[in-house]
């Protein structure tokens, strides 16, 4: 039975249900319980934003607090995955990939291929990303594109509570290393989520709205902005198709290409910096495989090529806005 819960609760529920189903699932990260070794409460935090709250007592011995040693514990999660566990490690902010990337891209991502198919590394790395918290340059980046470049990794970008639960359950059951990107602004987003367990397959885009005029492809938080912009455009008589690929790797190319074949116009919305981004990647894909269908130049709505600024006046300019997306839709539609 579905009821309304938050994106954060949906993630917690997915972890809880998978830990109950499969004793090999463990959770580790900085303050994932909180209070380890301290005189006060155990499970004091349940993660820096409370996403893992309550799991510590429900699943004794399987929620491990770690030192602030990302390379150490992300690598430990990878090693444990090679030895029969299904660890879900939390990299608190994706910006910290800089201090543990070797264990992700040189170790976890490579084992299966480099060892001739004889290794499985079923590890999930949950990580928080995105601007909007006034958290500035080192705690706000949108880096799913970096992981998407690496063969061997799967990359998941849920845009709503329903997807967050189903995609995380799939991620935990998957036998490859999965980077699970949680947008920090979305944690409070409410949505209908079934109580029972369900898995959403990777590489299957969600079409949120159908339309004949303009295709919009958006990722993570930007899916919601794209939907708002599409609703605004609808009032002006422009019918948009909104596609949420849900995973950037694997990528559901077919749904995107089929839509562009129908509409002939494409807007890509991506919170990343523009160069070598998912926006440029989708534009390249469509230019290569649906060139003949295009009736207008592809519009990219991204962050500018600058670090994430701190001041709200600047950060609000940095993040792609509904107004910018709507303007791109109209520009694509009116192109002659």
């Amino acid at each position, binding site marked *: 039975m579905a009821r309304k819960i938050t994106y954060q609760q949906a993630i917690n529920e997915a972890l809880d249900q998978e830990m109950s189903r499969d004793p090999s699932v463990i959770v580790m990260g900085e303050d994932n319980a909180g209070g380890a070794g301290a005189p006060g409460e155990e499970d004091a935090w349940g993660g820096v934003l409370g996403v893992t709250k309550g799991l510590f007592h429900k699943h004794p011995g399987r929620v491990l607090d770690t030192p602030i040693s990302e390379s150490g514990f992300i*690598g430990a999660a990878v090693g444990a995955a*090679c030895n*029969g566990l299904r660890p879900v490690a939390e990299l608190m902010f994706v910006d910290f990939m800089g201090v543990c990337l070797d264990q992700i891209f040189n170790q976890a991502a490579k084992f299966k*291929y480099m060892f001739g198919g004889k290794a499985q590394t079923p590890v999930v790395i949950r990580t928080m990303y995105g601007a909007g918290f006034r958290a500035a340059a080192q705690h706000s980046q949108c880096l799913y594109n970096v992981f998407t470049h690496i063969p061997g990794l799967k990359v998941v970008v849920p845009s709503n509570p329903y997807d967050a639960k189903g995609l995380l359950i799939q991620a935990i059951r998957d036998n490859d290393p999965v980077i699970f990107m949680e947008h920090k602004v979305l944690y409070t987003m409410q949505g209908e989520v079934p109580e029972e367990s369900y898995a959403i397959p990777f590489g299957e885009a969600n079409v949120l709205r159908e339309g004949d005029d303009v295709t919009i492809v958006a990722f993570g938080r930007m899916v919601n902005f794209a939907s708002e912009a599409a609703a605004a455009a609808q009032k002006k008589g422009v019918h948009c198709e909104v596609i949420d690929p849900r995973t950037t790797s694997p990528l559901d190319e077919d749904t995107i290409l089929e839509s562009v074949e129908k509409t002939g116009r494409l807007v890509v919305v991506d919170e990343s910096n523009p160069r070598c981004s998912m926006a440029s990647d989708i534009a390249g894909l469509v230019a290569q495989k649906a060139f003949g269908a295009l009736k207008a130049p592809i519009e990219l709505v991204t962050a500018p090529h600058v670090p994430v600024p701190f001041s709200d006046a600047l950060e609000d300019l940095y993040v792609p806005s509904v107004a910018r997306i709507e303007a791109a839709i109209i520009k694509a539609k009116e192109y002659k």
Partner: protein
Amino acid sequence: MTSTLNREGLLKAYRTMRTIREFEERVHADFATGEIPGFVHLYAGEEASATGVCMHLDRKDYIASTHRGHGHCIAKGVDPVGMMAEIWGKATGTCKGKGGSMHIADLSVGMLGANGIVGGGGPLICGTALAGKLRGDRSVGVCFFGDGASNQGTIFEAMNLATVWNLPAIFVAENNGYAEATSSNYSVACDNIADRASAFGMPGVIVDGFDFFAVHEAAGEAIERARNGGGPTLLEVKVSRYYGHFEGDQQRYRAAGEVQALRETRDCLLQFRRRVTASGEITEAQLDAIDAEVKALIDDSVAKAKADPKPAAADLMTDVYVSY
């Protein structure tokens, strides 16, 4: 008696060390012909370390290795025939020719891979040890690393984590004196790598890496302690390598005659032979027979590696979840 090992154990130890030596001497010779592709880093001289440690391990115990991984692979039970084919880049190799010398791995025997990243194995072995601890199966994880890796943050993080989680992990620092061309006298800030153990709340033990029996005994204590829930140990094995950092290294940073003197006075195989024959436990003839068998095995592995097919073009796109 020379150790806790019985005759069968002694013969096994000798065979393992001999196999590593023969394997490495043969790769050295064949690399010089230009037939072996890529980089190879040889373990000759350090055989007592991998063998003395791995004699205490079984399949459910994992090891993580280094660039210089052939010896660890053989000591952990990876098939030398598949290894040779891997080094020659053949489809029949341990990793189907996709890994090469720096990435030989066989998880079915608990060998988590040679590693092309200096210090890459420390965090991984914390993970395999954690899995064993949570299962309660008394297994351990052993991270072999060099004096170069001893200065990497990953190793510090891993040692700290191993104590924090009280993991059945053993950190074996194989100090062969040189990180590439830079002496550990220069690059390691303290006198001994083992001195760092106290900073991570674990015992630090120094052992002569040319002496199989010393390594075997020290490793045995550390591994037994870990199996019994006593937590991690840092074991520093002081040793040397007989060849360069990689094949082709002219080793101008070494003193003239340094390696020759080690080979003549301290070689692990030489010392082992003297000791077990002097005690009467093993005869020269038994050891000579092993030498001959090992030579035949390595000859055979090279002949097969040369004759085996290279991977097919289609193999480029397999063993990874998605290919665009």
